């Protein structure tokens, strides 16, 4: 299955909500731009049902170049983390239940 992209999201806004193609494309851009802008200002983004984008400041820690084995410190940095909301988690769990059930049936058939 190919990944969902901005182009498909815009197409869906056009077909589903009747947005002009131009408005649809702008809407998708501005949606992600606004979230990014907030995170850039070190502000958490909370989208109820979907999840929270949080920021974490990490201190410097020792690291290694995996190729050469050479020790190089990993500098202190700020990173974005995503905590899925309850609704999104349960949507995904329903998929998992179906997935494992189909695997089980597959195994029964072949075994």
């Amino acid at each position, binding site marked *: 299955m190919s*990944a969902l992209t901005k182009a498909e999201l815009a197409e869906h806004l056009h077909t589903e909500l009747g947005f002009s193609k131009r408005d649809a494309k702008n809407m998708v851009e501005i949606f992600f731009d606004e979230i990014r802008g907030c995170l850039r200002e070190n502000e958490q983004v909370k989208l*109820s049902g979907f999840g929270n984008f949080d920021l974490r400041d990490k201190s410097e820690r020792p690291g290694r170049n995996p190729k050469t084995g050479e020790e190089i410190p990993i500098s202190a*940095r700020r990173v974005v983390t*995503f905590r899925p909301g309850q609704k999104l988690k349960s949507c995904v769990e329903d998929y998992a239940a179906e997935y494992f059930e189909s695997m089980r049936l597959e195994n029964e058939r072949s075994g």
Partner: protein
Amino acid sequence: MTKSELIEQIAMHQSQLSLKEVEAAVRLILDDISDALASGGRVEIRGFGSFSLHYREPRVGRNPKTGDPVTLDGKFVPHFKPGKELREQVNASRALGY
């Protein structure tokens, strides 16, 4: 920022759209991402990041009240990997003292 603040922010920049339309659009975008993940798919937003599923192995957990062991099935959890642009911008803001 909350979802309703996000909707207001977008509506301010898209004055040709009503608040209702922006609200519907935000809901549709979030539902589309959730639906893609809920059917085992991936979401790739250039400049922002990608959403995918990560598998968690089955494990033995404990009932926090009684301490009894409980077997937990393997499961999928949603995962977000920030894109290069987002990573760099967020980290740069730290240097600027935000």
